[in-house]
């Protein structure tokens, strides 16, 4: 089982968490001025790297908070986690 560090609660077992996809994907601020291609990019396109990945997690069976986390998709090693709304 992975041990995931929640920024509020500290290191916790993986089964207390839910994965929520890639982090730092902002919804277009002005939908009217956004092209179909830009919408598709926002909705569907993800970086899917082999290696270092910034992603969102939710401590759903803990404090309930979303947060961001940097995890290596090859080794599963977690570099660090930081609160939602902040940058690494």
């Amino acid at each position: 089982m992975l041990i995931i560090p929640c920024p509020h609660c500290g290191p916790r077992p993986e089964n207390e968490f839910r994965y929520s996809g890639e982090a730092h994907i902002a919804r277009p601020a002005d939908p009217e001025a956004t092209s179909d291609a830009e919408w598709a990019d926002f909705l569907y396109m993800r970086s899917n790297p082999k290696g270092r990945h910034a992603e969102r997690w939710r401590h759903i069976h803990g404090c309930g908070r979303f947060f961001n986390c940097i995890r290596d998709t090859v080794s599963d090693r977690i570099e660090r986690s930081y609160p939602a709304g902040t940058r690494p």
Partner: protein
Amino acid sequence: MVDRRSPLAGLAGAAPSIPAARLVALPPCARVVLRTAAVLDLPIVQDINRAVVAGGVASLRLGPDEWLILAPDAGPIFAAASGHAAAVVDVSHRQVAIEIAGPRAAEVLNGHCALDLGAAFPPGMCTRTLLGKAEIVLWRTGADEFHLEVGRSFAPYVWQCLEEGRREHA
């Protein structure tokens, strides 16, 4: 008048005495979920994932803006929150309390719960977590004593998970 029955009445009555990990269905009490960023005139704990008991009222801080308060009466909590930007919800009958205590209590819990119950979880610490498939609130009230808050319909399941584990120490 409706007679409220504990979901554990049958199980607790039939439980064997196992001093290494005693299992007790605790009596009913008032329970309030408090969510606020305001500072209320209440003696509630400030450290996250910690619990304190003051004047017969236990407060458990479960998240950055969330407390579970266990008290003889919910009235004073509603009164203290009145006029503040706060969500106060009476959940007295949503969940029931189970205590497991004894030198093997932590080991029995770890049979179904992946939390590190060593030095990382000292007395006074509390958190929401998973026990088997059920979400619970776990509060370490003493070195060998744990208070569990369990959803009413999950209570027989959680009880039987713990019963299965502690019978190894009969």
